[in-house]
């Protein structure tokens, strides 16, 4: 998934702010467990992706992530012994021992899967709508090592995507059936370290991190979208913190499933969605 500038409020936002917005949404998803909150976040994320004109890419990423989420949902009830409501007795299995599948573990597997989808969706939106060049410039002013790590994270995706495409093409040139996709993915992952070293070396010899201060006259005034997404990110973080500290979410998976829906939870869900989506309402000045 490679960044392309599109006419959208998120694309028009400075990278540091847009990136923080995505990271905070992912952080909120990792902090809450109630399915209503997670479904709300996922729905808002897809609408936000549509607002950023990258819905297709984010949905594609979610489609790729779906098997991974299903695996999480299936594994949890097989490995977790907690929960009072047994819905299936699978007998005794070597290594794992006695397998009793509970409704609570099954439900919590679904929660974990949903959470994974939100987080993956956030990073898909990040890849598609946050300018990596701008992000690289923004990180230049913080500590070199963390900047290098962030830079690698943003740069490695296109490099590894190209590697995967080349490896796949090479496999198609051979006699017989090409190697399975997982072998190609494994080879790309195995080569990732080498590639990361190459990219990091290039960043070093281009002087990355040498200038700690912003270039003279290089400061850009904050646009309306910078302000809107910064305010939105702050509001999401504050609302999340308030809900977390105030225990607005009364979700319990074990020993018995409890997921009450009360006014505070509805406010949290609606508030998070509103904070996520409101910055997309302003469509002025979103072109190049």
């Amino acid at each position, binding site marked *: 998934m490679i960044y392309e500038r599109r006419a959208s409020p998120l694309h028009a936002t400075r990278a540091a702010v847009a990136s923080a917005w995505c990271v905070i949404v992912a952080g909120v998803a990792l902090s809450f467990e109630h399915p209503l909150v997670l479904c709300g976040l996922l729905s808002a994320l897809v609408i936000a992706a549509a607002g950023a004109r990258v819905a297709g890419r984010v949905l594609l990423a979610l489609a790729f992530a779906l098997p991974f989420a299903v695996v999480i949902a299936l594994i949890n009830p097989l490995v977790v012994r907690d929960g009072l409501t047994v819905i299936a007795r699978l007998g005794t299995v070597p290594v794992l021992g006695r397998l009793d599948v509970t409704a609570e573990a099954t439900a919590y597997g679904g929660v974990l899967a949903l959470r994974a989808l939100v987080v993956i969706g956030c990073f898909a939106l990040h890849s598609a709508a946050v300018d990596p060049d701008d992000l*690289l410039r923004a990180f230049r002013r913080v500590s070199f090592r963390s900047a290098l790590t962030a830079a690698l994270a943003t740069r490695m995706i296109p*490099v590894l995507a190209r590697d995967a495409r*080349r490896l796949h093409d090479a*496999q198609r040139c051979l*006699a017989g059936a090409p190697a399975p996709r997982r072998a190609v993915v494994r080879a790309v992952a195995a080569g990732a370290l080498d590639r990361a070293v190459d990219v990091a*070396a*290039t960043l*070093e010899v281009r002087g990355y991190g040498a*200038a700690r201060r912003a270039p003279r006259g290089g400061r850009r005034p904050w646009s309306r979208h910078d302000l809107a997404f910064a305010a939105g990110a702050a509001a999401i973080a504050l609302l999340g913190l308030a809900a977390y500290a105030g225990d607005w979410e009364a979700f319990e998976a074990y020993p018995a499933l409890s997921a009450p829906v009360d006014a505070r939870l509805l406010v949290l869900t609606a508030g998070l969605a509103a904070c996520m989506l409101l910055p997309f309402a302003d469509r002025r000045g979103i072109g190049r």
Partner: protein
Amino acid sequence: MSAALLLERVSYRYPEATAPALRDVDLRVARGEFVVVAGGSGSGKSTLLRAASGLVPHFHGGEFSGRLESGGLDTRTHEPAQIAAVAGTLFQDPETQVVMGTVRAELAFPLENRGLGPAAVARGVEEAALALGIAPLLDRATHVLSGGELQRVALGAALAGRPRLALLDEPTSQLDPVAGDELLGVLRRLNEEWGTAVILAEHRLERCLSAADRVVALRDGAIACDADPRRFLDWAAEQAPELQTPGARLFSLAGRRPLPVSVKDARRTLSAQAAPDALGSIAGLGADDRSPAGSIAGLGGDGRSPSRSIAGLGGDGRSPSGSTVGGLRHRRRKPRPEPALAFSSVWLEHRDGPAVLRGVDLAFAAGERVALMGRNGAGKSTLLRVAAGLAEPTRGKLHRAGRVGLLLQNPGDYTLRDRVGDELPADALDAAGLDHLADRHPRDLSGGERQRLALAIVLHGERPAVVCLDEPTRGMDRFHKDALAALLDALAHHGSAVIVATHDAEFAAAFAGRTVLLGDGRPVADAPTAEVLAGGWYFATQTARILGGAALLPEDGAALLRREAVVA
């Protein structure tokens, strides 16, 4: 005045390596000097440049001893990012050297990293873009660029802001001869007009020797020769024949002295040494540079030899290996057997993009050895990808007599496992001469070994009717090129048509019986290699340029010169 680069007893060993990559290297490069670093694969050229850029030892770790000053900065006390302010660096692989999303951002990146203001950055970007001829690419996304374009953009980023020292590791390896010559012209201008010291590691010395003030030859990490180009050639003739340029080899074999640094040098020497009546008999040695072996219209030569003229001027290039190519009419022979591979009016047009192949008609016979040449973007790689089924033509027909095996540019793409022995069965490894490497990781092999392994993987299984190789000699020294040529020759003898896309005219001359020159997605010349590579300016071997096309290879040229000497 401090030197642009100073090494004092520098030794370096990579982490976990058993042998040092650099051994007691003493070297001083003055400001404004142009130094070519020569040496075989694994001789330490890249490590020397990495040490000069500060990556060794800061980035790679390992054991470093001695003292190294790059642009006046001691690499022991300065980080690579600081050294970047005085030294621009370019490595071999352009894929990992472009770190930004657009060309403009890529060129601006090193300038911004120095803390320059927007006006200075904009000026630096424009200057670098104009100098390297990449101004039209400025607003293009980097992920859509070809390898050659990426290389030029990476070079632009290395040179943006006019560094005092340019450290370049095979900058022309991805470029066609035209772009390669242009790039060397830019480097020479940088060197002469801006006083930038240039340190250039290169395998194809014939390309850059004439621009060099000095040549430093490395062997096993130590300096084996440090001399001006002419004395380097004398040394190479005695001590390292694999480093000789084709022109020097031609003179050595013919017993002529002094060994020539450039084509002009060689022609001047030959003209001076030739007897008056012998002058005219060696093609092209006269003052008018006539090219009796023919010329490639539009590429060079005067096209005055109609019987041997090749290019597609006025022709439609529709009849490739048979009858007519651009006005060159071959006599029709007996009906040909079924070709191993045939393109019939093949087009490939990208959606919302250009047509990359435009009505290609080509046929390749079993056992034929063909070189596919042309500038960057002419369609060579695409033609091979269509042949192998990696891309579908949008119009036209393709005939394959059997499997088409394609070795892409990066041989590492064919190895998916952690052991060489797991990539291929033992008998196949044995046949490829790689059985002794079975327990090694494919990534730990040398470039030549990796390529042999990749080729063995491509050839494994059903015998391919056609074997295609895309730029197989990139970054290879002459020893490995000779080995590859012998391997491909054996394949052709076993009945496979072998097609090699290459910018390397010397390799094409040594390997191919036929050369197809592509231009703008269609063949503009298709003839025996001796004709295509004899008369051009760019697509010609150095021997052909020296002898006006009378011979392609140093061995043939030397025989010719010896004969002329006897006659005289």
